[in-house]
């Protein structure tokens, strides 16, 4: 069994095609190159602003690497084809924006239930509905978490720049493969279209993870078991004679459907949650700036984390003890660290390009004596340093 993109030949091709160095490129392009470095060799998608440059980059680059670009008839078909391809051993990705993300939700749940590794990039744009289709936003924080139905865990990352997108999408693939689960990347329209300096590394500096394959026939016969105790079953790929049965219905460890026994559902769904919970070290990531002595803490994510850092730096110049906390993995939320930081500060400002989404997560981890305030802006224009600084001064 092979995971496509794993062969030494691929290293040779990447080395030949993408020379290490500094490039001036769009966030969407940087993210695409990250996916190629991570071993993505199958992309199925449907064009939608502001994500389309990802599809365009993949359509241009994948064939050079022997990979496949499929433009499907819609977003539902795109994620469906990804799941099919993932079961044949491909590392797979798609990119979309809000409305397309909505269409993919049912099959995102299918991927959770069938434990199919895939990477789904949502380049957030302004909504609801068609909203400002060409403008950036951060309104899909909860769509990533609760968009599909049922009890399910999800892992979602959010890069803060083009350079960050390159590395975060690699991390997304590594988490997806390691935990046999879909991973959402919450990018946004502003970063997607911003051109900036991106450093492309040597491919050999990139650490890459591949999914666990069954060690023997016995493991292959239990595609939804837990032989290693980490909650992550080895994945028997299609086409190798294991006669694997994969279904989104509640299934036993051997894959066969059993929707009548309460214990079977309980055991399966709890394990899928447990594998995400107990492997927090695999995906938890956040950035901190000046949090050691901060009295006022700004919490921000994605595109907004950048003006937030600017505002914190300026506040420091003015003698205000401000700090910044940036969750890079936004789901599951780094709640423990948030709780610790919340005990040390007297005010928390949550800056985001929406009317208040991550603030709901932050609030869960704060005591009542902390002043909590949202710094919110919608309309397709990102928050500025001045706007955030004004709020910091307001609580100083």
């Amino acid at each position, binding site marked *: 069994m092979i995971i*496509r993109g794993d*062969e*030494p*030949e*691929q290293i*040779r*091709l990447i080395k*030949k*095609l993408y020379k290490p160095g500094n490039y001036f490129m769009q966030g969407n392009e940087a993210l695409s190159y990250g996916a190629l470095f991570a071993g993505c060799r*199958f992309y*199925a998608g449907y064009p939608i602003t502001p994500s389309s440059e990802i599809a365009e980059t993949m359509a241009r680059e994948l*064939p*050079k690497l*022997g*990979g*496949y670009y*499929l433009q*499907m*008839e*819609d977003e*539902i*078909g*795109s994620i*469906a*084809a*990804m*799941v*099919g*391809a*993932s*079961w*044949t*051993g*491909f590392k*797979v990705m798609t990119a979309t924006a809000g409305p397309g993300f909505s269409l993919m939700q*049912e*099959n995102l749940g*299918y991927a959770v239930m069938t434990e199919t590794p895939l990477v789904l990039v949502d380049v957030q744009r302004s909504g609801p509905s068609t909203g400002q289709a060409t403008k950036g936003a951060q309104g899909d924080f909860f769509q990533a978490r609760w968009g599909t139905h049922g009890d399910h865990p999800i892992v979602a990352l959010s890069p803060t720049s083009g350079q960050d997108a390159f590395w975060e999408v690699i991390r997304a693939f590594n988490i997806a493969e390691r935990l046999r689960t879909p991973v959402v990347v919450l990018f946004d329209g502003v970063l997607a279209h911003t051109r900036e300096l991106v450093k492309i590394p040597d491919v050999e500096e990139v650490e890459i993870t591949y999914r666990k394959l069954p060690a023997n026939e016995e493991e292959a016969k239990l595609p939804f078991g837990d032989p290693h105790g980490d909650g992550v079953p080895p994945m028997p790929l*299609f*086409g*190798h*004679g*294991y*006669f*694997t*049965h*994969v*279904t*989104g*219905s509640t299934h036993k460890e*051997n894959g*066969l*459907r059993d929707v009548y026994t309460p214990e079977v559902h309980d055991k399966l769904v709890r394990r899928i949650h447990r594998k995400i919970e107990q492997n927090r070290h695999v995906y938890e990531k956040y950035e901190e700036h000046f949090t050691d002595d901060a009295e006022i803490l700004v919490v921000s994510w994605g595109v907004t984390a950048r003006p937030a850092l600017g505002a914190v730096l300026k506040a420091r110049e003015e003698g205000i003890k401000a700090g910044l906390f940036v969750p890079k993995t936004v789901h599951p939320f780094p709640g423990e660290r948030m709780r610790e930081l919340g005990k040390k500060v007297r005010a928390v400002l949550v800056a985001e390009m929406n009317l208040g989404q991550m603030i709901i997560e932050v609030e869960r981890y704060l005591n009542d004596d902390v002043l909590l305030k949202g710094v919110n802006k919608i309309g397709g224009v990102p928050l500025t340093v001045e706007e955030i600084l004004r709020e910091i001064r307001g609580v100083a």
Partner: protein
Amino acid sequence: MAKEIYSKYPLIKYLRKEALPTALCPGCGGGTVLNAFANAVDQLKIDPKDLVVVSGIGCSAWIASPYFLADTLHTTHGRAIAFATGVKVGLPDKKVVVISGDGDLASIGGNHLIHAARRNIDITVILVNNFIYGMTGGQVAPTTPFGAKTTTSPYRNIEHPLQISETVAAAGASYVARWTTAHVYQLIESIKKALQVKGFSLVEVISQCPVQFGRRNQMKEPAEMLRWYLKNSVPISKAKNMSPEELEGKFVIGEFVNRERPEFVTELNKLIDEVQEHFGLKGESDGV
């Protein structure tokens, strides 16, 4: 009792024994379709290890998944062909087969069906058309005959049925045939052809649902439904000379299309070859 029947069935080796007996209602045409498919696989001597069977949601989706002993992917409602597209790109040397119902493949999944035919991807679709939503309790379908009664068309169906085979043939499939469960030998031959064709192939099987469709339309016995199919089936060669009025309520059966067209995954791989050649990326060992 069930065990005894199954142990005498010569094609039992193709079935996932731990999933038996099937959940299909007595008199359902699904068993005939499964039997025809198993016979086709057996006659062609296809190793089930070289098969991946994909299905969606509904009674007919159960026919080969979980019952057929191969790699099986049981997907979300309507999306089986899109899932199968990803499988085929990953495993171009395997036979990728979709078996599902009319509601699943032609209603919610209609878009994927016509686009897979347009792409001409090498997938075999066996579409079981029973004119009704069976599993959800007998609601009207896009294939329900004009005037028929269902739980959601209790007075009569005022919509015209979708002609699936004609639509898929027009969309560009390599092979399209339609039979009923009363034409078992022709059906097996068509499934065999469909499995061998390099390109998108569709075998539409008109199949009885005595429990949900027949019961509400004066045919509660399975045999009555089979007689209805036999009486109203018109071979395609004869249908060509009949007027739309004469064809009203008839089932046109036979091969609609059997032609060679460039196949999607082959073209995709050809393109990759050309691109790698163009950029001078071909090494000593081809990593693809």
